[in-house]
């Protein structure tokens, strides 16, 4: 029992880093421009298909493919920002929700036409790592390491580089940032780009672990919502912690009750936190 529990916790933690990475993209965008990106899931799905095509069809190593996918994710984000997001930033909230959802519908619609809704698999294995009684597939370990590295890079960017600081400045006070000579529109577009880059990378990592369809993004999008709310909307560090909490929960809960209760618990928790502690468990601000 204890061993099983430990294995579940480790499993959950490894997955949690990827969840956290995905949620970070969502929370970054919200933190900077108060837009809840409802196209987050489909963008993740595109990341999955990106890795699939680059590795299975073009023979690239999946992890190398991730780099290309990241670049494409950035470009995709910039395009989405320019077409659907920029114009509704000052409009009521409903507008941004609907605009990003319309992007969601378009990606899912086109994606279904191209890829159908049948499952795809990135077939690829690197053996396992044994830690005493616990056996971990290297895929999972590598994904978690990459997710951690990407998180660290994001933090380095946001806290140590001038454009990163400028993005934080814009997120805190857009007018004041303009007054300091910071081109706020460029920074907003850049953060949307980074947000969707993180989504595609997280999607790509998921693709190296599980089979997926064009609709798979939706599940991860919902998980990202839960995580983001756990960690506090707009707080990237919180997203990482939230991701780990969710990962561990998903690992541990099935040890005690049926797996099908997991989403009920997740979503009830989500609504409860929104109600009781909307600033998130970490209590930013």
């Amino acid at each position: 029992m204890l061993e099983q529990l430990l294995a579940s916790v480790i499993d959950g933690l490894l997955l949690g880093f990827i969840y956290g990475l995905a949620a970070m993209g969502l929370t970054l965008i919200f933190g900077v421009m108060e837009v809840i990106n409802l196209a987050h899931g489909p963008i993740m799905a595109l990341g999955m298909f990106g890795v699939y095509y680059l590795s299975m069809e073009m023979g690239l190593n999946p992890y190398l493919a991730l780099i290309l996918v990241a670049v494409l994710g950035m470009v995709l984000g910039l395009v989405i920002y320019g077409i659907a997001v920029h114009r509704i930033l000052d409009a009521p909230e409903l507008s941004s929700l609907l605009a990003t959802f319309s992007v969601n519908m378009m990606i899912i619609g086109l994606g279904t036409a191209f890829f159908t809704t049948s499952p795809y698999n990135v077939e690829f294995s690197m053996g396992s790592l044994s830690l005493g009684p616990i056996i971990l597939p290297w895929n999972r370990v590598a994904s978690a390491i990459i997710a951690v590295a990407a998180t660290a890079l994001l933090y380095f960017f946001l806290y140590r580089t001038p454009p990163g600081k400028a993005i934080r400045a814009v997120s805190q006070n857009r007018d004041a940032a303009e007054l300091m000579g910071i081109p706020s529109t460029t920074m907003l577009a850049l953060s949307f780009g980074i947000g969707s880059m993180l989504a595609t990378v997280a999607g790509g990592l998921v693709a190296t672990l599980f089979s997926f369809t064009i609709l798979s993004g939706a599940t991860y999008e919902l998980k990202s919502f839960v995580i983001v709310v756990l960690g506090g909307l707009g707080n990237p560090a919180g997203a990482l912690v939230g991701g780990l909490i969710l990962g561990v929960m998903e690992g541990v809960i099935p040890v005690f009750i049926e797996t099908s209760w997991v989403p009920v618990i997740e979503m009830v928790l989500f609504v409860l936190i929104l109600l009781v502690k909307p600033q998130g468990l970490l209590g930013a601000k």
Partner: protein
Amino acid sequence: MFSLLLVITMASSLNIILGYTGYVSFGHIIFYGFGGYVGFYLISQQGWSLWLATLAGGITASLLALMLGSAILRLKGAYFALSTIGANVAMMAFINNITFFGGPTGLSLNYSIYQDYGGPAQAKWLIFYTLFGLALVTVITSFMVKFSKFGLGLMVIREDEEAAKVLGVRTPLLKTQAYSLSAFFPGMAGVLFFFKNGSVEPNDAFPLHQSIEMIVMVMLGGQGTVLGPVIGAGAYEQLRSYLLTSDLFKDLQLAIAGLLLLLIVLFAPTGVIGWLRSRSNELRRILE
């Protein structure tokens, strides 16, 4: 025609909370699904008549909204919208686990039951007329709300909730009432629809994307107007059935609907009615 009447009912009732009160519910389908499930259970497992069960479906959906609303209507803007998504998914996952609702496989009817209503064909007509009546009652209710003191209170909340409180509007009460009312009709519609289909399962009952399609319909016609949701529902349904039957577009139905939504949001945020109203003052008075 069934689905047209259904979407008119859904869009008009959503409009009460979305258009009049200004609260964006991304999970309004929850009331259709939950009310429908309860009614269907009463018919298929407890032998209730369709009429009683339909009423029960509406009432339980309203009660759900009352409970849910008294909690989540405290949230503002995006937080409210997110919580409705959460509630929707939670409910679907919950029903999946409830054995007397049949879990993931759902419930189905013994087809002999249609004999009580004059055979399957007759029953279908019966449901059609009932649904027609329901759609009509929903639109009439929407009209009555719009021109009542209650409706004025809701619109004051939509315009400025803080100012509403200062004016003496008991905002928590009114919001909850509006939410509850807007859940009643979808609950009944759910029972009728599942009864017509003869079965229900969680994935049919709580499709998140339909919640958002409802919002599109309301927006397309014009939120906050009586006729807007009706026109929007009609137009959207027309478009969807055209796309679904066209060889060229049938795979791209969703993408085109998405594009349409984006165009509305970017260029015509007040919908068809809003656009017409802004053309002329005369029309404004007619097109409430």
